[in-house]
């Protein structure tokens, strides 16, 4: 038996955990078999709780298997975990940086621990700094970096030396598209130059598409594995795009398609059109389908990994639940269609010359925009661009240094408490009381918003229906699965019927399945007239938005519909749009202009 060809060989691995509070046994992994050849790039994809992290931790020798063997680089991990830990690098999902140490001190610590020689260090640091853009911050304490920057520093600490094998657990969660591209460049270069084996878990299927091997995991089992191409074939001949009226947001057609649960497996707004995957039983010329498409032009598409993934997941879920997928509950439609943002004049949010400074640092510089009722408005930008600062000012959590800021007709600078009553906020992290039940959380926050008695009960009933939380009223909210926690967060945010709902990176780290469901809820919410302000790092999600704003270094760089922004990025109005491309182009163009300006100033002086 030769282990020379495989970097990792896993045979019959089982792993169980005992939940301390309830005493129940949770099966995390069930009979896993896999072999990963040396020098390849391999991805684990799957929903929350599918066992990806547990598998990586077992490989790193941080957990012990209950049964089966894990052979890493020819060593039985169970027998000699230290040898494995000497030879591999591992980036956990939550990379624990030492927050009171500076960026440089964190890097030095890991370089020392891995015994990186001084001369190798200079070169390595230079490259890591170039890629991560951390060079400006070397003396800053790690705790004072933005979320995305922390993630990049974590990756830099992991890559201070060249290991024989690299384990990355969702390394790009919360990292902006620009940096994601750069991070993947490092990973691929390492693999090429040093024949490194890389194993990565990710929620981004476009990242998995770059890998040689993909393992699709679901509830502790490997559902399917193969090359991205072979996995895509599960959706072969069933992928189409429908392009209709290019002025209406794609999400309208997309939500109609997604709701046709007996015909359509998946639908997303993409490239200005709607991409959808049909189930096996439905032919592309089926009459009920065309009733929805209403004469939109249909073209067959080559399947992508994401399409194959969705087909596999839907099949598995339907099989497990033995009941058909249900559409997200319809909400009472608003009385009148949303007024045109400019014509109506009644903007829900109006911002003029907004500035926020922290000491000398200008986090947000003279930004102006308006958002109208029922609009889905996306705030995009690289890490550290000022998105969070803008967001917090809009929510009234942070006062503006100067400028005009009106939310729901109330001036935030003069009547902050009043404005707050009109807005709901769902933070990135789950911020409800984990040991209170679903109902207790709703009652508490309802009370905090000033709801009581019959009114409170009515509202709680409504949101329980709306977010399908019935039957879970008594469950401690900390025990809810990830997607349910988010629903509860939104239910709480909407209890007091706000006019505006703020969502901070709600889809970071969630799988495509959960993201579809989430966006379906958001679009139906917008249909009822609620204004949605959202930040995201998934650029394809920008196409759900009516309009988006791109910020970089505190400045507004682009504003408009996704197509407007595509044109602003220098592309033709009729070409198929790619929001990720548009984002990267706009940020790079503005940064180059900045460099040129600085050079001119230096030259002139």
């Amino acid at each position, binding site marked *: *038996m*030769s*282990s*020379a060809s495989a970097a990792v060989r896993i045979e019959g691995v089982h792993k169980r*955990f005992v939940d301390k509070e309830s005493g129940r046994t949770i099966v995390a992994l069930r009979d896993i078999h896999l072999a990963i050849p040396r020098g390849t790039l391999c991805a684990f994809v799957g929903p929350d709780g599918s066992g990806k992290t547990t598998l990586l*931790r077992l490989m*790193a*020798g*941080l*957990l*012990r298997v209950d049964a089966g063997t894990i052979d890493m*680089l*020819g*060593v039985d991990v169970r027998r000699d*975990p*230290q*040898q494995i*830990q*000497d*030879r*591999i*690098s*591992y*980036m*956990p999902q*939550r*990379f*624990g*940086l*030492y*927050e*009171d*140490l500076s960026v440089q*001190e964190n890097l*030095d*610590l*890991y370089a*020392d*621990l*891995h*015994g990186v020689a001084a001369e190798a260090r200079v070169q390595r640091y230079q490259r890591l700094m170039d890629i991560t853009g951390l060079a400006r911050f070397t003396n800053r304490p790690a705790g004072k970096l933005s979320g995305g920057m922390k993630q990049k520093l*974590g990756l830099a*600490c*992991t890559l201070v030396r060249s290991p*024989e094998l690299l*384990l990355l657990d969702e390394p790009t969660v919360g990292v902006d598209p620009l940096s994601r591209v750069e991070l993947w460049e490092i990973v691929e270069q390492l693999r090429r130059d040093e024949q490194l084996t890389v194993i990565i878990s990710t929620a981004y299927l476009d990242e998995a598409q770059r890998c040689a091997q993909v393992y699709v995991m679901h509830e502790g089992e490997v559902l399917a594995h193969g090359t991205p191409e072979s996995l895509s074939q599960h959706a072969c001949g069933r992928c189409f795009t429908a392009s209709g009226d290019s002025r209406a947001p794609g999400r309208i057609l997309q939500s109609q398609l997604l709701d046709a649960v007996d015909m359509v497996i998946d639908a997303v707004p993409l490239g200005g059109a709607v991409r959808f995957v049909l189930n096996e039983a439905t032919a592309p010329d089926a009459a009920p389908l065309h009733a929805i498409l209403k004469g939109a032009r249909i073209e067959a598409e080559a399947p992508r990994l994401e399409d194959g993934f969705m087909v596999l997941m839907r099949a598995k879920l339907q099989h497990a639940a033995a009941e058909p997928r249900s559409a997200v509950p319809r909400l009472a439609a608003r009385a009148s269609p949303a007024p045109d943002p400019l014509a109506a004049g009644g903007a829900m949010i109006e911002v003029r010359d907004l500035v926020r400074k922290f000491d000398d640092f200008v986090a947000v510089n003279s930004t102006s925009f308006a958002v109208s009722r029922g609009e889905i408005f996306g705030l995009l930008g690289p890490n550290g661009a000022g998105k969070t600062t803008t967001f917090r000012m809009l929510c009234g959590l942070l006062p503006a240094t100067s400028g005009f800021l009106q939310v729901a007709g109330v001036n935030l600078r003069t009547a902050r408490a009043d404005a707050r009553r009109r807005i709901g906020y769902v933070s990135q992290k789950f911020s409800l009381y984990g040991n209170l039940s679903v109902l207790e959380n709703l009652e508490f926050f309802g009370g905090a918003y000033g709801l009581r008695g019959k009114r409170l009960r009515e509202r709680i009933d409504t949101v329980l229906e709306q977010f399908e939380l019935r039957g879970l009223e008594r469950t401690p909210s900390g025990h809810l699965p990830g997607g349910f926690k988010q629903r509860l967060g939104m239910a709480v945010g909407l209890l007091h019927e706000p006019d505006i709902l703020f969502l901070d990176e709600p889809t970071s780290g969630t799988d495509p399945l959960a993201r579809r469901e989430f966006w379906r809820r958001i679009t139906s919410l917008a249909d009822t007239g609620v204004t949605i302000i959202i930040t995201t790092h998934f650029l394809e999600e920008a196409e759900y938005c009516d309009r988006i704003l791109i910020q970089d270094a505190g400045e507004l760089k682009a504003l408009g519909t996704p197509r407007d922004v595509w044109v602003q990025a220098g592309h033709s109005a009729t070409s198929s749009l790619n929001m990720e491309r548009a984002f990267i182009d706009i940020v790079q163009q503005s940064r180059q202009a900045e460099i040129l300006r600085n050079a001119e100033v230096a030259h002139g002086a």
Partner: protein
Amino acid sequence: MAHEVPAMPNRARRHHSPQAVLLRLVALTRKEVRQLLRDKSILAIGLLLPVMLMLLFGYGLSLDVRNAPIAVVMEDASPAAMDAIVGLQLSPFLSPVMLTTMHEAEALMLAREVDGIVRVPGDFSRAMAAGEASIQVIVHGTEASRASIILNYLTATLAQQGIRRVDRSGLDNTSGIGSVDVESRLWFNEANTSTWYLVPGLIVLIITLVGAFLTALVMAREWERGTFEALFVSPVRPVEILLAKIIPYFCVGIIGLTMCLVTATFLFAVPIQGSLPILLFASVLYLLVALGIGLLISSVTRNQFMASQVSLLASLLPVFMLSGFMFDLRNVPAVINIIGHLLPATHFMSLIKSLMLAGNVWPQIILECSILAAYAALFIGLARMVTRKRLD
């Protein structure tokens, strides 16, 4: 089945070399020191709190009785009666309040404004002439130890006055007050100041605080902040992680100890009768015990809040209550005495008290040092056992 044993690559083996171990240890220790210096709260607990405790206990908390207010009821205003109580007015321990009726005295006693009543009855001079004079002494008994001290002072003061009177009158009086010459003397705390007794105990308390309480937080903090997961998947050995935690806090403990000894000697003039090197050696042993306990608690709880609570209950409070710091263990029930002697602090407490106040008692030094060394080995060994590079 012949399993092919792959040759361990050079770059894996080099992690075992002494230089590599030293490099990692230095890197980890440097990290720990930086965190220590940047976290003001830890520095405050480690360095400021010992000084505060020293001053608080040295000046604020004293078991001595000084200027205890005493109501003196003079129902007989004759010169003989005045002569009997003049000693009370001269005593530095008592401060008499002169009254004429018992009624007033009782009111003051109830208001807790006086600690005792000395009543010279109306027939004092007449009874004295008959050789059977008596003085009533009443002491507020709510604080038993204070009450007995005051009672002692009162009887001693009154008795002395009696002796003097007998001397003066030249009468041979074999009965009644002042007939016996009592001269008492205290050993090992000649001044009978409780500062002498408290300061050595305070050193035990401060070492426990720095050793167990501070280190209880450091491992738990890494677990809580998730910093261990990435650190574990590196050539770092568990023993290096532990050593890197022990070294800086050991230094903080030594600084705390030095500050205690300096304040003890120069501010409170507590003598060090025994040998200083032995005192330092025993303190180092006890510091290691405390560090071991702290690291053990921290590794097991993995949660800062819980670790601080547990270390408070398991190390700091027992030092207060059960080690003989405040209460002499010989006076407590047998069960408490046994529990007290299971605590490492008790052994260090008795050793440091005798080293500072009595001198070198070799059998005791050898016994207690061996016990402390065994405890140090036990707790650090246990801490090493529970520190595994595993998440479950």
